[in-house]
């Protein structure tokens, strides 16, 4: 009984980010749809990582026959500028995935920071945040994107990421706020106040971890939106058409009339890849829904 003074095992801390991650990953993986999604995403990430090894040619290596049909040298044919479509597709995956993940991550981080403080603070500051978020919600998204893109032109993918993040964080912040508000009324939050915790710690150690699934969901949603937004911006010619991404491939496909010249792969392949990547994220989100909504997770015990 009572206290031992010797040989105390190491102090166990709150679940480390890794443990949380592992838990989230396991829950997501347990969902069939999410498993498919993760597999597709994983495949894309592998392709992107090993693009330098897999891609038969450089991304903008040209000088091949223009608008050629598929052949042994060029499985998916060549572009009007004489570049290898397959190589562009592989290299392009780097940008699309990078934009999706980074923009998704950034807008999630902003949404979390703002959403949580918004949900936790009261009075004047809550009004201020409310005002700012509302502003970003009512301001038209794509036009705002276009204007910012025009303003920041020439910034390459960094610019696209900024644009997507600026126009994309507000929705997440709103969702996270309402969740924060409902969590902050839970007893354990009040209990943390009684434990002498400071507001910062309450928000980030007590409330935040309980929203993991929501945040993860928000991340995948934002990443999907970012991938589609990148493609849209590039297609409108407002991105940086000197880089090779799936979006710019579509832009050039349209520009060089791939439909007329019969360069099907040039138009189909990037579109399909975008859709597959976006779908994979949506599928993963199904798994995330499972954690956030216990009712969807039938059979599990409390």
């Amino acid at each position, binding site marked *: 009984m009572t206290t031992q003074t010797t040989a105390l095992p190491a102090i166990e801390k709150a679940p480390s980010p890794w443990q949380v991650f592992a838990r989230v990953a396991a829950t997501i993986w347990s969902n069939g749809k999410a498993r498919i999604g993760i597999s597709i995403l994983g495949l894309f990430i592998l392709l992107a990582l090993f693009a330098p090894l897999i891609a038969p040619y450089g991304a903008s290596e040209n000088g091949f026959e223009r608008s050629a049909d598929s052949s042994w040298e060029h499985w998916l044919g060549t572009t009007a500028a004489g570049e290898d479509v397959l190589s562009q597709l592989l290299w392009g995956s780097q940008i699309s995935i990078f934009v999706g993940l980074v923009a998704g991550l950034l807008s999630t981080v902003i949404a979390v920071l703002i959403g949580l403080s918004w949900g936790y603070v009261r009075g004047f500051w809550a*009004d201020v945040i409310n005002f700012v978020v509302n502003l970003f919600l009512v301001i*038209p*998204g794509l036009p705002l994107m276009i204007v910012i893109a025009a303003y920041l032109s020439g910034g390459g993918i960094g610019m696209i990421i900024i644009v997507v993040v600026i126009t994309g964080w507000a929705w997440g912040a709103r969702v996270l706020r309402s969740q924060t508000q409902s969590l902050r009324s839970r007893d354990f939050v009040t209990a943390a106040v009684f434990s002498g915790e400071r507001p910062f710690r309450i928000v980030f150690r007590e409330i935040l971890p309980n929203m993991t699934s929501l945040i993860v969901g928000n991340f995948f949603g934002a990443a999907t939106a970012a991938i*589609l937004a990148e493609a849209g911006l590039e297609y409108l010619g407002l991105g940086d058409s000197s880089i090779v991404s799936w979006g710019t491939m579509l832009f050039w496909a349209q520009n060089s009339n791939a439909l007329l010249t019969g360069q099907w792969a040039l138009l189909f392949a990037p*579109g399909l890849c*975008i859709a597959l990547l976006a779908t994979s994220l949506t599928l993963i989100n199904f798994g995330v829904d499972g954690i956030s909504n216990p009712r969807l997770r039938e059979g599990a015990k409390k």
Partner: protein
Amino acid sequence: MTSSTLTRTPDATAPVPETGGGRRAAGFALRKLGLFVLTLWAAITLNFLLPRLMPGSPADAALAKLAQNGPVSNATKAAIEAQLGVPTGNIVEQYFAYIGQVLTLDFGVSYTFYPQTVSELVSTALPYTLVLVGVVTVVAFVIGTLLGVLAAWKRGTWLDSLPTLAGSFASAFPYFWTALLLLFFAGYVWRLFPTSGAYGPTATPNLSFEFLGDALYHAFLPALTILITSLGGWILGMRNTMISTLGDDYVTFAEANGLKPRTVALRYAARNAILPNLTSFGLALGGVVGGSILVERVFGYPGVGYLLFNAVTNQDYPLMQALFLMITVSVLVANFLVDILYGVLDPRTRR
């Protein structure tokens, strides 16, 4: 005991006569209104600043176009500036002039489409967008919601997985990509549908059946694109909320009382699940006025989205300002209307 989420509802909440509640309510409304006005003002100001943050002036944009055909002289620039009525005066003067315009709803003359006025341009474009995007948004919401109800009610069967998966896959394609393919095949290869415009090339807009039929025919492909790409969101949203209402006790109780499955599905589960979806619907409706830039671009559809694209790429401040204002206000108003609708549909918020 039951579960950790069980909330205790005090039993003694019989309404007590009002004491000073009226004044508080008035104060509340005033605060709300104040915030609304403040948001509106900020949005209006932002709409003013954003275009001006873009480097280059409207004249530069016009010149750049001309310069592609050969050198342009200084005189040309001066003439163009004079023609376009490029803003004069410092930014503060411009701002006050602009506020004046907002208050009188007179946005002056467009730069890009000089000498057409902004109201002229908007009033020709708006009906098409409102009809096309508006109708499709509503239709997509209705169909998507119904499919979502079906999917949730039959969850675990193919009626669940098919619409859910197909919907989310279809909405994962970039808008313009779907549009391009539809246009190419249905328009150019099979020649089933017209490839551009809102009505036949020689028609003049009127309200005859012939013209309306023609207009519908032209709207079909763009409408289909928007439908295909937006359906998935509604299906998923509705399905997920409804699955959670299906677990609610009043649904179980309705079943225990032997209500017809249809009644339970629609009047109990779906009826409650639709409420949260309304919020997204409000935002979507508000976005209608902004049109669908990508789709209108691909189909050469003369709506607000196309106009907006032109305005932005040509740095047409007056047009941009008017369109942004319209979009902002319509989002605000749509949300307001949805709030009211919420009150009608949900007695809990009604008083």
